[in-house]
């Protein structure tokens, strides 16, 4: 049974500074490979600057990779032309870290959630509103907030809204790029549980990007550790957490305040 997503040797260079040539380049991804079976969650852990967000953008077809392939349900997304990529994009949706910037603050919640329908030209206007309200229900945003502007919502509500919007086009893969990192602890707990519920009820596959090992442990079946544009360690969650091999993994674990590594025993605060 082939995995939903398989990334092979993805490389991404950015031209650094003012020169448009690739001579002075910044290598964001240096040959990344990973795979996620359908219905599972892979947590991608790494510090800032390790290339996690770049990977997210490439997989979501928002940035073209320099080389490598992205197999989604057996199709190489990286090799597709612009038009065909547009057809593929709805199936891979991205939830960003900062909802203040990922939601247009002047738009109402209803408009934001129905935007995907609008852009794709699906459904009539009343239909869009109905479906949008249903999405709001699913992420537990009270219907009376639907007419409120995005900047009037709390951080947790905004992120729920972002998730609801991401679900609008019924994607198979949801990439959560540090989606919980900007939230308070209690809100984080609520939303991570929401995500787990949605996964089981909708059969979603998650690529969960984070720098927080505790969160990774809570959410994911598999963990991959990223360092300087490469995957340095990957495997099932328990294995990584109990016996981390790579130095980067260990330092990341040590940096997670709620997580203390004791030989053989995981102590979770």
């Amino acid at each position, binding site marked *: 049974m082939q995995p939903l997503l398989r990334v092979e040797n993805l490389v991404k260079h950015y031209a650094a500074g003012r020169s448009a040539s690739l001579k002075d380049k910044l290598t964001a991804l240096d040959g990344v490979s990973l795979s996620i079976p359908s219905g599972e969650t892979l947590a991608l852990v790494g510090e800032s600057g390790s290339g996690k967000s770049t990977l997210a953008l490439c997989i979501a077809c928002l940035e073209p990779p320099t080389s490598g392939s992205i197999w989604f349900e057996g199709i190489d997304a990286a090799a597709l032309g612009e038009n065909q990529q547009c057809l593929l994009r709805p199936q891979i*949706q991205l939830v960003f870290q900062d909802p203040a910037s990922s939601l247009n603050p002047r738009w109402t919640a209803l408009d934001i959630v129905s935007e995907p329908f609008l852009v794709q030209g699906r459904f009539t206007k009343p239909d869009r509103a109905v479906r949008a309200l249903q999405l709001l229900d699913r992420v537990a945003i009270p219907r009376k907030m639907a007419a409120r502007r995005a900047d009037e919502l709390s951080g947790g509500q905004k992120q729920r809204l972002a998730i609801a919007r991401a679900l609008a086009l019924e994607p198979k893969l949801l990439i959560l790029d540090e989606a919980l990192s900007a939230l308070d602890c209690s809100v984080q707990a609520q939303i991570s549980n929401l995500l787990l519920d949605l996964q089981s009820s909708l059969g979603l596959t998650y690529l969960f990007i984070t720098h927080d090992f505790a969160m990774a442990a809570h959410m994911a079946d598999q963990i991959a550790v990223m360092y300087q544009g490469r995957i340095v360690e990957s495997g099932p969650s328990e294995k990584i957490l109990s016996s981390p091999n790579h130095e980067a993994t260990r330092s990341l674990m040590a940096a997670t305040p709620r997580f203390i590594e004791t030989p053989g025993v995981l102590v979770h605060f």
Partner: protein
Amino acid sequence: MTQRRKFTRWLIVLVTLHGIIAAAGFFAPYDPVEQDRERPYFPPVHIHMMDTQGHFHLRPVFYPLRLRAGSFDQYEEDTATTVPLKFFQRGAAYRLLGIVPSHLHLFGATGARVYLLGSDAYGRDQLSRILYGGQVSLLAGLLGATVTLFLGALIGMAAGYFGGWRDELLMRIAELFLALPWLYLLFALRAFLPLAVSPLEAFLLVVIVIGMVGWARPARLVRGVVLSVKERDFVRAARGFGASDVYLLRRHILPETASVLLTQAAILVPQFVLAEMTLSFLGLGVPEPMSSWGNLLAALQQYNVLVSYWWMYLPALAIVPFFLGYLSLASALQQRTRPYKIEEKSSWSPS
């Protein structure tokens, strides 16, 4: 006072002022081109509530002027005839807003000409000329500002959204335009175009010239907004749903530029009205017999007018309430976008 209330208050003031000018036919007692060679350079009449016999009149009266005995240009009041000022008078025909024909004027008099603000060399009523002239000057300013903002927004969006060499090129050209002193540019542009044209053509030329002088600053400001909005995640997200460039520009980026454009409009319109006045004053703008505030002032270039006929200066003051209204409006708008900055240098920037 809150920013919103200030904005509303000045908006009402401006709308009222513009309304008066737009309804010039109603407020003006006479047709602006109507000459009366018997009454050149009449000073403004004095309106009295009480006549020389000590009677109080509910309706204001004035005395017609006649030449003082033994003088060529000194006038005095002819107290023998008392002429009442009538309101809602039937007078010369005109078309309100160019469409609705009407004969109704706010005030007028029979038997003598009431020159509230004096008359000019041909006996034309200055008040009427100022009101009608306002239509021309204000329209030139408004249209010019529209042209400039349209150009500026288009160029700014193109430069900001597409980036690359297009951006570089457009911004270099903008820099060139910004570096030139605008008055010189205005004169040069206008003067290098054909000078002896019909009033309508002259008006259009003035609008085009004014519009082309000022696009650089709005373009830079719009470009700035576009650059910052372009990178926002909600634009990325929309692209993730398959949005096209046009959609993004129209639904996400353009609304963000609205506040910048509005503020620029409030700053540019009075400047452009002034530009039209300056051009017409120097003979480069709207020619006679069309009146504009600028060419009304052109009479002041003659020394004798300057010395003896002070009321010919009054058209200059007509623009002052508009400046007040627009600048206050601009200040109210800027307070919303930058609540902590005391000064906004966008109207006059060193760089």
